[in-house]
């Protein structure tokens, strides 16, 4: 039997097993701690910070999903600082990406009284829909960068390593190597990424077509992967690689 740790959460005395996270301890006593990036079956990297709580005596707020409990900790899950951070993170996220297919996040916007216009006018992330394989589409304008897809594609599950990141900071995006199509990548189409995506960013293609209610042929024309290719061609004045991405795409047509 592992050691039992005693701590205080919102003034209540709580006991939990050593090695538990603050999130587990908080939930065990019914305290509400919201999360976005946390997923039971994925490694936790403490990305979204929606789960932050205030621990007495600590300079910064603690991400409850990764911080382990310690004896005598005095934790507040709804202090003013906590609420300000959660609300502001939600408002900023809302202003950056399309959350229309992320009902759980939208619910949190309401819980924290987020002003959905507060940061309007800022740059939004609106990359074009990528429709490059028969299995699923990728609409990164809905991506909240929770990393789950990258994780399950790599060490958390599939070891396929088809996707990673491009850019950094606000311009970070999920991508294949050199943004080539998934069919040309090491993707094995296991669909695990689609399964863990908390928003509408990754979606089975059939579902997407049905939702759109449009003739498939028409949708194909709409998807901007075509325009994307053209733009890339213009941006690359040099024909460097003997067989370029574009040529390979052309061959397939």
């Amino acid at each position, binding site marked *: 039997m592992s050691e039992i740790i005693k701590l205080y959460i919102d003034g209540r005395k709580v006991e939990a097993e050593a090695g538990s996270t603050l999130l587990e301890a908080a939930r065990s006593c019914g305290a509400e701690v919201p999360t*976005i990036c946390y997923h039971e079956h994925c490694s936790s*990297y*403490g*990305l*979204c*910070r*929606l789960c*932050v709580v205030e621990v007495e005596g600590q300079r*910064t*707020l603690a*991400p409850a999903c*990764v911080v382990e409990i310690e004896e005598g900790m005095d934790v507040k899950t709804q202090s003013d*600082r906590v609420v*300000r*951070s959660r*609300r*502001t*993170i939600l408002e*900023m*996220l809302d*202003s*950056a990406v399309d959350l229309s297919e992320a009902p759980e996040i939208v619910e949190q916007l309401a819980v924290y009284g987020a002003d959905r216009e*507060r*940061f309007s*006018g*800022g*740059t939004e992330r609106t990359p074009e829909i990528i429709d490059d394989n028969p299995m699923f589409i990728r609409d990164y304008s809905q991506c909240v*960068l929770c990393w789950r897809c990258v994780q399950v594609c*790599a060490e958390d599950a599939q070891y396929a*390593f*088809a*996707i*990673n*990141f*491009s*850019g*950094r*900071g*606000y*311009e*970070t995006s999920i*991508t*294949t*190597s*050199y943004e*080539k199509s998934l069919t040309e*990548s*090491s993707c094995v189409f296991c669909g695990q990424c689609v399964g863990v995506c908390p928003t509408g960013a990754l979606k089975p293609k059939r579902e997407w077509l049905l939702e759109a209610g449009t003739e498939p042929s028409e949708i194909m024309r709409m998807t901007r992967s075509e325009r994307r290719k053209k733009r890339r061609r213009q*941006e*690359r*004045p*040099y*024909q*460097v*690689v*003997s067989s370029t*991405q574009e040529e390979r795409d052309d061959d397939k047509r």
Partner: protein
Amino acid sequence: MKQELTRSEMDLKELKELLLPMVNSGRTALLPALHAAQELYGWLPEDVAAEIGRQLRVPEADVYGVIDFYSMFYSRPVARNIARVCGDPSCSIAGGLRAVDEACAHLGVKLDEVSGDGEWMVERAPCLGLCEHAPAALVGDRAIGNIDPENPIDWLSTQGDGARSVVGGDIRILTRNCGNGFTTGLKEYMLSGGYSGLRRALGELTPSGVVDEIKASGLVGRGGAAFPTGLKWEGVAKASGETKYVVCNADESEPGTFKDRVLMEDDPHQLLEGMVLAGYAVGAEKGYIYVRGEYPQAVRILNEALGKGRDEGLVGRNIAGSGFDFDIEIRVGAGAYICGEETALFESIEGKRGFPRIKPPFPTTHGLFGRPTAINNVETLCNVPHIIGKGSDAFRKCGTRESPGPKLYCVSGDVDNPGLYEAPFGVTLRYVIEELAGGVVGGKLGSVLLGGAAGAFTTAKSYDVPLTIEDLRSENLSLGSGVLMVFHEGRDVRLVLEGLAHFFADESCGKCYPCQLGTQRQYEIIHRANAGQALSVDRQRLSDVGWTMTDASLCGLGQTAATAVLSALDLWPNLFDTDEDEL
């Protein structure tokens, strides 16, 4: 032109040869391999990246992820010559942004665009660590100081290295061999007393004796966080595990900081001696110096010094006949401020994107490659030979009880003599600015950005506060990496803030939401306000974004990305008020 080559098997063969010595190292060789390949091809085409991935056993998507993280790696063709012009405060107030525009106009290109003949490209760079020579640029491999913004032809074609260090101050301990206009060689270093610390340690002291001496000296880290070095080393020495590392943090990218560049370029052996001593103290056999990619000159000088040190038996196997082995490897960054954060730096050496790790666990037990690691700043390590050579009592003769020893102050901006000044901890802002740097020019003192971009603004009200860790802390200030950026009263603080906000938005790694989103929104709000579109809610928005980053970000970058802005709003609450607010 390199880019026009149609690469065949033949071309990749050259790459394969280049990779041969790296293959056994695996992923940790990724950044060195990418540097070497970029040197060969001018940029990093897809099949080159794929080959590197195959050889080092790194998934292709990961290779691309790494290339796209670092601003000095290019997955698209670039020009043969890249002119990187600093756009950060000390340079921008001296005309740096003007120089960017003029250079673009002269070459007939937009920012980041390759000129028609493939020769030139202009980038706006973050602080290049040449702030005492503002405005500054890095043209290819050459650091050029005091460029004439109006006259791009002049500085784009300069052949010499126009950025020799300017060093002064009333004590010359760390800088005793600096500022002479040349690199101090091993012989001169020894004549000035160099390597006597190492001789003493290997001859008279046990490793724990060295740790004790450092603890007794009261030395604290000079990289920004002011953590006691002796305590850190003790932690590493006592951590379980056979393999341990020493890492020197020479990423120096905090805007306004240039001390480490001067120490490395002018007196490299002092740093090497400090590292060997650290290795001996903590029980490591291998050390890394991680130098930012924008310091090619420092890399060349360190490599040369390292070769010399090895030849003379001062680095490597059986050092000075003592039986102690310690070798050093130099690693070169590729344009990412975040890689100065210690755990991001480890990730970078391991061949990954520079994402900071969650702490705990701390580097003392889980550092580079998951092993116990002592990571220290260049200046911190340069203090070590003096402490061991002359004893901790001698070291404590200058400075205060809680902040003992000499300190390097990087002074730039509106002063008569921008430069690097060595003085004890405890001198005042007034003393450094008026006595050492020749006083404020262009008007009366307006403000000082103390501690760099991650630091806070202060005004003449702090002129007589002693510059020590304890005194500044009680004023809610911090010396950070020893930066004093001085602005005369005519400077528009809002423009400076916009520059800082631009810096953080560019350099955020994007891992955690508060900073990934907050640095962008902070920049946009300030940018819009400066463009005459301030909103009455801006002060509150900046405050909420700022405090959210400060409270909830994962690492020190996000936690300090709003410090300057919040300090400015404290000092000048009406800074971003609209006309409406004044009614």
